[in-house]
């Protein structure tokens, strides 16, 4: 199986490892007479060698469907998809030989031990046992599971299982690693360990494609990302780029006692601060069920202006704009509900 790592690519694809144009995924109706469901509704994107590319969006945005099409386990309904210069309809096995996949749901082999999981998975790629054994030792070290090599999978914590899945996905030294919500369901400490390992992979030159509905994850890891909503791409750029384009520098969050009606009154008063031209001028207001977000260049000044206009919030917070604000601006909804 020498072809796994042989870089026999035409030079043209060196720029874009994955290229999608008008990509669609439509699921047939589950019941007779039901409606077909369009999960991915004609998206265009390009993933370049060595970058970390992200799909950011809420649940049901079409991220996982896109990932499954890239992973060659979901047929493309319409449009173009090219991975490593090949068409998944024709060359799925050859593409998959050069991909690493970390699925959303852990699919570790519970009937096998930790080390055997890597060994057998490597065999699925047609690698030689000696080669896999050497690589397994390396990978278990990398994900800090060397001392659990002979353990069964079941008793491992969620973070350990995810790390093992990452190690498994690297057994074939993939050129592209695709990760579907790599840290969903992990506690904060486990998330940071995963992020650290992914960052090291990026430093080592692996191209990463990931989906997430955590804005901090996207900001920490992604060089470039697309914001997805309802199967479409709402915006594309680097995290900093997107924040500059779609949000202000700072955000003032104010909260009121729930059910008091004060929030509605405050929104009406705050309208007066929009583009007031004075110190503390704000550009935009977003109202959420539990708080009001005021977008402006200077959050502290905005807070002073809020107090000045007779609004007395129960609590207030000034912070920098994040991708969450970008998403809110683009879709009118929050990412995690």
């Amino acid at each position, binding site marked *: *199986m020498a072809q796994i790592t042989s870089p026999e690519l035409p030079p043209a694809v060196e720029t874009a490892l994955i290229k999608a144009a008008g990509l669609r995924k439509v*699921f047939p109706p589950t019941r007779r007479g039901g409606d077909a469901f369009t999960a991915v509704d004609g998206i265009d994107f390009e993933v370049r060698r060595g970058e970390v590319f992200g799909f950011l969006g809420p649940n049901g945005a079409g991220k996982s469907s896109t990932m*499954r099409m890239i*992973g060659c*386990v*979901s*047929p493309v309904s319409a449009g173009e998809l090219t991975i490593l210069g090949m068409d998944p309809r024709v060359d*799925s*096995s*050859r593409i*998959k*030989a050069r*991909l690493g*996949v970390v*699925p959303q*749901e*852990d*699919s*570790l*082999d*519970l*009937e*096998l031990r930790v080390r*055997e999981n890597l*060994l*057998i*998975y490597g*065999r*699925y*790629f*047609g690698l*030689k046992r000696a080669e896999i054994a050497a690589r397994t030792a390396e990978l278990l070290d990398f994900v800090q599971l060397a001392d659990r090599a002979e353990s069964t999978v079941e008793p491992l914590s969620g973070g350990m299982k995810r790390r093992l899945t990452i190690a498994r*996905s690297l057994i*074939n030294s993939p050129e592209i690693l695709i990760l579907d919500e790599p840290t969903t369901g992990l506690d904060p400490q486990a998330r940071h360990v995963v992020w650290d390992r992914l960052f090291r992979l990026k430093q080592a030159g692996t191209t990463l494609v990931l989906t997430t509905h955590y804005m901090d994850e996207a900001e920490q890891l992604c060089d470039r990302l697309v914001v997805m909503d309802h199967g479409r791409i709402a915006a594309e750029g680097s995290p900093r780029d997107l924040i500059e384009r779609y949000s202000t520098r700072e955000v003032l969050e104010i909260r009121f006692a729930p059910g008091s009606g004060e929030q509605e009154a405050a929104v009406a008063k705050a309208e007066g601060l929009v583009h007031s031209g004075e110190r503390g001028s704000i550009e935009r207001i977003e109202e959420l069920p539990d708080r009001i977000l005021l977008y402006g260049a200077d959050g502290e000044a905005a807070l002073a202006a809020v107090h000045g206009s007779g609004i007395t919030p129960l609590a207030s917070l000034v912070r920098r704009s994040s991708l969450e604000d970008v998403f809110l601006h683009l879709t009118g909804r929050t990412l995690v509900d």
Partner: protein
Amino acid sequence: MTTTELPLTTPLARLLLGRRAFGPLGGSKAPVLIERNMVVYRRLWLMLASGFFEPLFYLLSIGVGLGKLTGAVDGVPYTDYVAPGLLAVSAMNGAVFDSTFNVFFKMKYAKTYDAMLATPLRVGDIAVGEISWAQLRGLIYSAAFLAIMVAMGLVHSWWALLALPVTVLIGFAFGAVGMACTTFMRSWQDFDLVTLALMPMFLFSGAFYPLSVYSHWIRVLIEALPLYHGIDLLRALTLGRVHVGLLWDVLYLMVMGAIGALVAGRRLERLLLT
């Protein structure tokens, strides 16, 4: 093309269907599935052992025990008569268990096949691999059971050598159809249907007594069922009563397995590659 294949004999499924039947679905990398299952069962040898003891206990209880009360059946001692029937039943049971419960668990709960499909493996590799594994397991049981039959003097002819490939054929036919049925199962409750289908076939297909006890129409019905053909073949071979009509049994089981394998492959593709 690949250097991955184990030095195992080509599985019967491939032999019968050929490379082209699975075309773009794959099938050539199936041996790595057998390798995986061997690693798993290295620890579960006790479970393997139970598959061997079941027909042996039946043979001792019904064949030897009950045989003391009955006279000769069909011109041979009852134990000699019932042993090939039990061999066919055990080949059927092993294959069905592996291709229904085990496959359903791996497909719906363990996500074993989803993990496999993220690698260069294809749906055809999975179908051929799992069916072949069921056959291989069945082959081990059958060989051990045949050895016991020889030791007990229940084998009357050198034709019995062909009983081994025939048990593989029975395993293929039932394993493939079992797997195809599994792809239609929605929950564990549906597996009661499997028991419901196997139980009467086990009792009434002529493993324990000749079909001559039945009226004409019941006989026609039983002869339409697959287990009858397996029993008919094995009994003819171990008792040395070989005739051309046996080719019909072989054809029946081959066609049954081929249809099962094709349906299983297609359905798995629809279920796993959504």
